[in-house]
């Protein structure tokens, strides 16, 4: 039966203002059944394409181009080395390599998290218009920063060759730290980009936190400088564990203890799971929030 189009503003009748109705609305669950098989291969392709695209776009317009990604840590290294070996004397063996590794790892963290926050907003337009797995955006930005990490690590290994440090079995163990680092970073970027959609201040807050974090983690100084009272809490920071452990393994040929590795891995996996869970909950509503 055909009804007439009412001229009254039907919207006024349907505004749910009382708390009860709002609760009802939240409780009603919706089902969507789309029996399409999640084709992981296609998602991988998307990640690939996005990562390549991001990488290209980042460095296409700057003059030095992608050499900047190599120069950045080196310049930091030079300045910090000068300050902390001639002005304030910290006596640390192989201080150049000590610094460089820490800087490289920290740069990876900061780059991955900030670019993932930006990318989810810039590619948010895509999410609004096509049914599209949103997590691929974040993973692709992490992958793009992983490429820079790999290049920086090549530089580091060439430095190691210059300073004539041999790669021992301990160095192989540092690959575990690499895996933990990647898990941690991906989990953090899921968490942060999820919050970033609702609170746009987070960009500035996070850059501030990164700045503080740089000095809290033992990048510039060794962790032995922290008094024993606080060292337990200090070493709860996963980044400090990773940087410390990978430095010991690579530079000082110190085979890591199983206990320490387990603790770091639990922390990193916990953060990863929290991040993934939070983001999964958010994905159905992303199209409206972005």
């Amino acid at each position, binding site marked *: 039966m*055909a*009804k*007439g*189009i*009412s*001229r009254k503003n*039907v*919207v006024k009748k*349907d*505004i*749910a*203002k009382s708390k009860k109705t*709002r609760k009802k*609305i939240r409780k*009603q*669950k*919706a*089902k*969507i*059944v*789309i*029996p*399409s098989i999640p*084709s992981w*291969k*296609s998602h991988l*392709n*998307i990640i*690939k*394409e*996005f990562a390549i*695209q991001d990488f*290209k*776009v980042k460095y*296409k317009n700057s003059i030095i181009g992608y050499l900047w990604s190599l120069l950045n840590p080196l310049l930091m290294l030079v300045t910090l080395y000068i300050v902390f070996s001639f002005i304030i004397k910290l006596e640390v063996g192989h201080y150049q390599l000590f610094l460089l590794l820490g800087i490289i790892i920290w740069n990876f963290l900061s780059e991955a998290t900030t670019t993932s926050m930006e990318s989810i907003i810039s*590619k948010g*337009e*895509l*999410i*609004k*218009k*096509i*049914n*599209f797995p949103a997590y691929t955006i974040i993973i692709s930005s992490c992958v793009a920063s992983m490429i820079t990490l790999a290049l920086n690590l090549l530089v580091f290994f060439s430095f190691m060759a210059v300073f004539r440090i041999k790669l021992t079995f301990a160095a192989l163990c540092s690959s575990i730290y690499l895996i933990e680092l990647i898990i941690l970073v991906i989990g953090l970027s899921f968490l942060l980009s999820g919050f970033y959609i*609702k*609170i*746009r*201040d*987070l960009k500035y*807050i996070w850059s501030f936190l990164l700045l503080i974090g740089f000095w809290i983690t033992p990048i510039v100084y060794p962790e032995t400088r922290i008094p024993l009272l606080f060292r337990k809490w200090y070493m709860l920071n996963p980044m400090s564990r990773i940087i410390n452990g990978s430095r010991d393994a690579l530079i000082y040929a110190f085979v890591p203890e199983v206990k320490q590795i387990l603790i770091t891995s639990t922390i990193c996996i916990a953060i990863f799971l929290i991040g993934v869970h939070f983001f999964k909950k958010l994905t*159905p*509503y992303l*199209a*409206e929030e972005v």
Partner: protein
Amino acid sequence: MDAKEVIKIQNVTKYFRIYHEKKTTLVDYLISIFSPNKKMRDYETICVLKNINLSVKKGECIGIIGRNGSGKTTLLRIIASIIIPSSGRVDVNGRILPFIELGVGFNPELTGKENIFMYGSILGLSREQIRNKFESVIEFSGLRNFIDTKLKNYSSGMQARLAFSTALMNDPDIVLIDEVLAVGDNSFQKRCLNKMREFKKEKKTIVFVSHNLEQVKSICDKTILLDYGEIIMSGNTDDVISFYKEKLFEEDRMDFEEKIRAEERKIMRLEGNRKKMQHMFRRKLSAVEKKHVERELWKINNALEKVRMENRELYGEFKNTIDMQINEYNALLEENIKKATEMKKALKKKKRMALKKQLVQIEKSVSYLKNARDKLILYSKKMTYKDVSQAPEEKQKLRDVIEQIQIAQEDGVKIELIKELEKNINKLDRKKIEKIKHLLRQELKNTKDMTYKLQLTKIIKQLILEEMKDEQGN
């Protein structure tokens, strides 16, 4: 869900939150907790879709029409699973190609070729598949020379063509189109429509949302009317489109009537003001006050003229729309009458129940259309511009004249007023004639001027003659 049904929507409702001031930063959140201003804290939930039930079978082509803000795009997005409904169930069986906006995900810094590959990967194709379809995409878009230039340097038409042709790479089972064919020049639109027809032949389901009712007629078998989130009518395209147009027309009509009423109110107000001003003239006014009153009268007259002009224009505009509607009705009538005659001929040869039923339906619609057309014609005759206010204007003139005769004390003034009366004798009613006779007889008694008495007797004779005429006429 049946084997043939491709899309099934059951009892879907969707609520949107509208924040009066959207909170995007931490500071906003903190302020909102402590603010006395309710606007920051409150939001309204709007029901955008309400209890929608839809089922689409394979190979069907459905159109969705409705006004802006009636929930068409949200429906499409829910089918494409971009948005989740607040309650209800959605089953979709097949690969979807959503055409909700062209050029989604195109990066203006990259070349056309790179964008094609990017878009293909978003749609779920591997690099090899994209390479296989690359040639066909370029052919369809006609942009062979421009593939290696950056997207920044494309014109909007070229971008649209590229987007459309890339979207066709994916071999979809379901196509969702959202007012996309409105973009682009005529040749592009024709190409798109031809592609839609090809899809139809290949028995792919199409869900088509647009405001262009001709396109909807040409492609779709079944249409749905949405208004404020509810399905108001669903069925045959012709029926639904005519229903939609009628309802729009009715709304235009009601708007028009409201406007006219508003204007008439204005006119009455202005006339009332004018009366007051004219009454002021009775008192003994100083020169300054007289000037003031005259100025006000002048203003009021100007305003009255303006309003009348607007009124005339309104009537003229509305007549055009009425005429258009009448022409449409006539065209539809002719079509239906042709169909009816053909069907009768076919029925004579072979008797079939289906044909009979269709005949009955067509005859119903014919009678309905005739009724509607006749109603419209009557309405148009009724609502012609009448210069409604001139009749009372004259009546008021005469009333004023009569009052002024009573009030005026100089004979010269009275004579002038009586001359005015003579001109307008034809338009007087019985009651007025009696009134005036009464007045004039009283004055005969009171005056001593012979000329004045002669004039008065003349007028009284004319009035009596008129009364005799009226009685003979009745």
